[in-house]
């Protein structure tokens, strides 16, 4: 009797491992792919040169968890495009809605960015935008969290990114091309990495940065690895995709 109970308990633990390290990836990858497709469709419809640009974003979301991407409806402005990337969208999107796509061509990742960093959001295989941080392309810090392992593991290979590698953030207006600067191993309590000036809370930002904060080491939540990237340039949608992502 006791033996049978123990064997059963062991089998359940193995079953849990199978769920955690395989099934959550399957479910989250599928959900994230659906959201990527929905975002790309809404971006195409909202493109400045599209006749549908004035219409509200269609709800192409495949499930209830995907809110309408309100945050992607920033009106395109015709600010100077070469030296100044222009302001990002300034209105905070509702929690759980998708606001951008992040391309990591070096490690072959393409993930949606949803508003919020609750586990309920991150477990969908997406990157989560820290609501207190800035929006893509804005002067300041566009900070996102994401799983390093399990639930789609969007940032599994973050350690392979090297200085200069492109990080492309796509919104309805176009592509913000960031370049990897450095990674730092930090403690989970070191919130200064998501400050407007990364690492220096309270300072006024003059540059546009991005930071990603997955777990470190893999399969542990002991530390975080913060990957910092600096905005290099903005490519408006009318100019087509930048070469970094095969445009």
């Amino acid at each position, binding site marked *: 009797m006791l033996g049978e109970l123990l064997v059963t308990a062991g089998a359940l633990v193995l079953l849990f491992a199978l769920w955690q390290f395989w099934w959550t990836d399957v479910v989250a990858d599928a959900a994230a792919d659906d959201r990527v497709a929905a975002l790309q469709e809404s971006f195409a419809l909202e493109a400045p040169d599209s006749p549908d640009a004035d219409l509200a974003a269609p709800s192409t979301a495949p499930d209830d968890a995907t809110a309408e991407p309100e945050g992607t409806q920033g009106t395109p402005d015709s600010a100077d495009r070469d030296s100044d990337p222009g302001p990002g969208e300034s209105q905070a999107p509702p929690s759980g809605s998708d606001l951008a796509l992040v391309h990591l061509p070096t490690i072959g990742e393409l993930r949606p960015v949803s508003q919020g960093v609750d586990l309920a959001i991150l477990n969908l295989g997406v990157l989560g935008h820290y609501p207190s941080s800035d929006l893509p392309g804005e002067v300041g810090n566009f900070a996102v969290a994401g799983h390093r*392992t399990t639930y789609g593991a969007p940032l599994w290979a973050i350690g392979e990114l090297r200085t200069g590698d492109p990080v492309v953030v796509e919104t309805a207006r176009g592509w913000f091309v960031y370049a990897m600067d450095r990674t730092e191993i930090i403690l*989970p309590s070191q919130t200064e990495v998501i400050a407007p000036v990364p690492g220096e809370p309270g300072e006024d930002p003059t540059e546009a940065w991005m930071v990603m*904060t*997955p777990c470190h080491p893999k399969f542990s939540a002991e530390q975080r690895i913060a990957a910092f990237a600096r905005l290099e340039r903005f490519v408006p949608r009318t100019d087509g995709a930048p070469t970094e992502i095969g445009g």
Partner: protein
Amino acid sequence: MYAALWRVLPGPVAVRLALLLLLAAVVVVVCFAWVFPTIAPLLPINDPDVQAP
């Protein structure tokens, strides 16, 4: 435990085996859909954001 379960199940061996498989499938589905998602946040392997302690 399992011997008792085997005795409780009705029918010939083939039917009993099928019922056992069905029961096992139910256990897996219940675990995957409800039990594991509930206990996973309690494990220290999944917490990718930074926050004030």
